[in-house]
């Protein structure tokens, strides 16, 4: 595979603006998130990074009064072009939330397969291998392979979050969005998820919001720094952390504020 293909951009935004009613929460963000790399979004609370990520799968507009403008290109195509259906777009993008949220009325198996079950796939011969692959990718298979029928909520917090990762991966999305996926977990579960992400990004492009800078430094390839609705700076992680262009970036990273 040539370097060009490797560095091809999977998803990018061009002049993305987001509003809650009349309040503008994001001011024209243009960011490229390259294929098979993990891009971390950092910044203080309320800087807009969660809003940004929710614009990538058009979840932002589900909030009453909220809207987004600008372009978001997924594999070259603008997901906000008039006439495009957010429901279809969301099937190409996976999302994992801050708090683990497996569906309580479903078993582990059903949770992982829920995206496919909704799409009408019923055949066990099709679902079984997908469920196993997703659970392996989420580093959960060995722990639950004998209890696939158990309810999804019986697992520990860290396991539930990995279950949610498997659920998102089962629909085979090229991009996986993660909104502070480990902030509600203990350090050991956090470490396990970070491990699996390092493996995972070889197959899936990951965009991750995190308030933990050490986490961003550990596992991301690129980092973008957000402040008050603007993206201040972005670039390869080691550059952003050791030699930032902007003074505000440096102040945040060295702990001056945020």
């Amino acid at each position, binding site marked *: 595979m040539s370097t060009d293909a490797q560095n091809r951009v999977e998803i990018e935004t061009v002049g993305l603006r987001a509003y809650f009613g009349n309040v503008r929460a994001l001011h024209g963000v243009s960011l490229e998130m390259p294929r098979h790399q993990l891009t971390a979004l950092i910044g203080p609370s309320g800087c807009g990074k969660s809003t940004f990520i929710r614009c990538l799968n058009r979840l932002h507009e589900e909030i009453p009064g909220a809207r987004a403008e600008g372009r978001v290109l997924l594999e070259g195509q603008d997901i906000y072009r008039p006439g495009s259906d957010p429901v279809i777009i969301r*099937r190409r993008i996976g999302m994992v939330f801050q708090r683990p949220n497996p569906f309580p009325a479903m078993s582990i198996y059903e949770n992982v397969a829920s995206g496919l079950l909704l799409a009408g796939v019923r055949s066990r011969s099709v679902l079984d291998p997908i469920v196993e692959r997703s659970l392996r990718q989420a580093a959960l298979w060995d722990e639950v392979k004998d209890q696939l029928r158990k309810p999804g909520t019986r697992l520990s917090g860290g396991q539930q979050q990995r279950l949610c990762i498997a659920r998102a991966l089962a629909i085979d999305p090229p991009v996986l969005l993660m909104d502070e996926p480990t902030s509600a977990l203990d350090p050991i579960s956090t470490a396990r998820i970070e491990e699996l992400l390092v493996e995972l990004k070889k197959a899936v492009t990951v965009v991750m919001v995190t308030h933990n800078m050490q986490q961003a430094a550990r596992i991301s390839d690129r980092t973008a720094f957000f402040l008050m609705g603007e993206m201040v700076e972005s670039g390869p992680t080691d550059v952003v952390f050791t030699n930032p262009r902007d003074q505000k970036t440096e102040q945040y990273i060295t702990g001056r504020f945020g």
Partner: protein
Amino acid sequence: MKTSRAFDLWRKAKSRVAISLLLLGCGLAVLPLFAILLHLVREGASSIDWNFFTQVQKPVGELGGGMAHAIVGTIAQVGLASLVGIPLGLACGIYLSEYGGRERLAGPVRFALELLASTPSILVGVFIYGAIVVPMKKFSLFSGSLALMLILLPLVARTSEELLRLIPQHLREAGLALGLPRWKVILSVVVRSAWPGVWAAILLGIARIAGETAPLVLTSFGNPSFARGLDQPSASLPLQIYTYSISPFEEWHRMAWAGALVLVLTVLILNAITRLTGGSNEHRRAE
């Protein structure tokens, strides 16, 4: 994950149909209120005149009858029931909220009140019938009031308990720290703070018993004119509506509609007032 275009369209269509059905269901739920109000106004408004409020039941064929006796009967019975039921209910509510933790009696009392609140009101009538009407050998306004009181009591008790519980502990402590005796703290601080909600609950309770019919069928029974004493049978507005509507007389049917319109307007206004001033939303219908 690739899915067929046709299937995606099918899913979208299914979603649209399902959402439309949900909205249709919602419309169906709202429709009856308007239908009922419409008919009440259409059939009843024309029969409401001065006679309605001042005359008593006239024999069939004679015009100019009214429901004065029923209205007075309702006011009397609701008034008597409230006179006893409200203080008693408040007392139970205070008992459960302020002393509930330490008193052994509290659990059974709460259970009893909850059971009482959930029994059909006709059974309250049956109870009073056996306990009072039979020994007295007659139907009476008194027994009607008693039945209404038994329906009002658990309502007031449970709601006031809930509201008093909501008052934060530090307010009580502040009162005690000022050197006030406990009973004064309860009445002047706790009940006083919860009063708007308690008052709303009382109004709702009154609205509820004003509409009760079933227990009165067996206790105050009805009367073509004013009751001459507490130990005499008495008419009441909902009971009169019932009696008139199952009769075969056209004139009485019209009065039934008029009476229903007056009753519903009164009840709805009371409810709307309490709702708009932030009242509670636990509702039970009057039988």
